[in-house]
């Protein structure tokens, strides 16, 4: 039973890892102000150009991405845990299920960005407010998927049998649910990631998220707004492109993971037959 990971999956993972490690290294470095090098267009010395204080845009963008990635990872992790907990609670009995369903419907019925804005704003913005906002709003879709899975498992014969043997719900969750759910959990977590990053940038762009001295992509983009009509397109273009690429890379990675897991399933079942 040979399980191999295809190159299509390795490339995006490596890409993001390298990006993140470089970002962490760069973050230690002070962003130098050079008033003689203000607003220069992209060149070999400054690949992404410089801003109105002569700071290198490549370094700023990279630092911004590191903030975004960190927020994305924490959000994806915490949201997934909330989603899993919700699904498991829903599977426990009918009453809990109704409550969980009601909560999922509540969050899904409100426009995502608006809820996020409200929560972030009431918590006073900043990294903490933004993270809590993101975590609280991003668990719903995954929770809905997991809830259905748990529901199906609950009705399957081996779970019924397990129950007949007197195993309690926690034991069943640990020994039966988790092994069955983990593909969904991993894919779900990866797919929350791009959402979280984009929403972080959006909220920050609107001025409710991270504070202006943090090097975040949303900040860079909103700052560049007042320079766009002056013709300094590189201030927005490259950071925007970078953000887009990261998002798409994660999306792609999610897809590849999905395919690998599906294929392994198929492979396993083929062998068993």
């Amino acid at each position, binding site marked *: 039973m040979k399980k191999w990971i295809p190159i299509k999956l390795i490339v995006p993972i490596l890409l993001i890892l390298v990006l993140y490690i470089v970002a962490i290294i760069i973050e230690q470095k002070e962003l130098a102000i050079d*008033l003689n090098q203000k607003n220069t267009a992209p060149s070999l010395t400054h690949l992404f150009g410089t801003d109105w*204080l002569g700071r290198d845009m490549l370094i700023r963008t990279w630092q911004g991405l590191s903030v975004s990635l960190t927020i994305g990872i924490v959000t994806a992790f915490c949201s997934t845990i909330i989603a899993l907990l919700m699904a498991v609670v829903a599977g426990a009995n009918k009453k809990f299920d109704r409550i969980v369903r009601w909560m999922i419907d509540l969050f899904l019925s409100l426009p995502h960005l608006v809820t996020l804005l409200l929560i972030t704003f009431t918590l006073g913005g900043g990294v903490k407010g933004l993270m809590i906002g993101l975590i609280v709003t991003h668990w719903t879709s995954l929770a809905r998927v997991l809830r259905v899975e748990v529901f199906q498992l609950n009705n399957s014969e081996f779970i019924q049998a397990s129950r007949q043997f007197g195993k309690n719900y926690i034991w069943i969750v640990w020994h039966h649910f988790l092994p069955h759910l983990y593909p969904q959990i991993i894919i779900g977590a990866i797919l929350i990631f791009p959402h979280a990053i984009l929403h972080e940038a959006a909220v920050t762009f609107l001025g409710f998220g991270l504070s*202006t001295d943090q090097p975040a992509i949303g900040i860079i983009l909103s700052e560049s707004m007042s320079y*766009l009509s002056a013709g300094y397109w590189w201030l927005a*273009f490259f950071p925007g492109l970078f953000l887009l690429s990261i998002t798409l890379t994660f999306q792609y990675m999610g897809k590849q993971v999905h395919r690998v897991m599906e294929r392994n399933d198929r492979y396993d079942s083929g062998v068993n037959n």
Partner: protein
Amino acid sequence: MKLRLILLASIFTIVACSNQNIDSSSNEKIETDSLTLAVGKEPESGFDPITGWGRYGSPLFQSTLLKLDEDLSYENDLITSYHISRDGLTWTLELREDAKFSDGERLNADDVIFTFEQAQLSQSIVDVTNVDEIEKQSDFSLKIKLKTPQATFLYLLATLGIVPEHAYNDRYQDYPVGTGPYKMVEWKKGEQLIVEENPHYYGKKPSFKKLTFLFLEEDQAFAAAKAGQVDVASVPITYNNQTIDGMKLLSLESVDNRGVILPFLDEGNETAEGIPAGHVVTSNLAIRKAMNLAVDREELVDGVLEGQGTPAYSSVDKLPWWNEDTRIKDDNQELAQEILTSDGWEKNEQGYFEKDELEAGFTLYYPSGDQLRQSLSIVFAEQMQHFGINVVTEGKSWNELENLIFSNPVMMGWGSHDPTELYNLYHSDIKGIDWYNSNLYQNELVDNYLENAMHAKSEEAVNQALKNAQFNGETGLSAKGDASWVWLVNVNHLYFVHEDLKIGEQKIQPHGHGWPVTDFITEWKLKTNE
């Protein structure tokens, strides 16, 4: 995949195009009797002088008793003469008899009295608390009695637009009626204001019969100017190297200043409301003086303002009551270091000054979203780091700054034609009211000078007392004395103006970019008309 490539390519092209001059239609001939302007935001509280309209720029719809000319001296407007009694308490005003409101009614003393009464009732921005009583002498003459002598009352007379008693109601701010050069045609809130010539205006007829004000954001104003849709557009200083065909870029000097306010008291103090006040480092006089000397204001002007500004040495640079002795030679690190050394500060291993295990340093706050103040803060902090004071910057919302300002340095800005502002910024009675004197500065001598200025009987006496308050040869509120601020720069105001339009000499511009340019709008004319 191909589709994606095409998409990407088209994005590139669009971006590349926007970099060039798309539009050349702005060369179009200016319409001879109407103008379109994009000069700043809509006045939030409408066009009622009682609630502050007309403090900056022309009140358009109303006119004032006096007016300020380009050199900030007073000229008669609605009055033909005024007389101040010898004790400075009784002001007799003679009104002109040919002034009519835009609805045709004649203006008389009752309207002036009514205006003052309204200002008293509403307790608004217009400060008339010193007015004791107003007496009507005849239809066109009145006497105003003050509680204390106040030569700065002139400024009030020059900014308070007179409202009509017969047409003043709840909706006045939306439908203003006045004796000014223009009357309202239409106000689409959030979009535009259209005004046309007031046929009853007593003064010289303006050359432009119709004005349209567009309420645009600054970058939209620039885009509109580029498309040839506006004749006058106010733009931020970041646009100073842009050109628009058929328009010239005017850069007006200002007292629109920015500086760092330094908490004056030591840590552990409180405001009257119990908010923590004071800072352990900035309460040290040597530190405040050293920062004033070490900072390189020229670099800030060239680097951050792109040359569109002047170094600021006080909050009143180039105003008639500015004491020119407050100008200091900055970028003088040796002298700054000397001052610190003689006060017992020494550089530690990190390169920062230290005294009794206290490191010289603080967090400098700026309002987030204000890019100019952010840039100034960042560069100022870097200069101080270089000098040996550990300054770090952080952006906060105005709401948060409201409390932080008492115990932390903040990048602030002021600048007004009203001499009272200096009093408000530095007098110990005003501690922390409406952002005034938020560093809780106090100096008995300065207080005395400022009080003298407010109760002086003549303009000259006001100016002299204010000059003494700044620096009297020994001490004062300026960088040579208590140095409770580090004033940094005055920011020029930039306007793109149609090249055929002449707007004449302007006053030195106050805080607030936009409306002040309309000060002399009745005198604007086309070059070709000469």
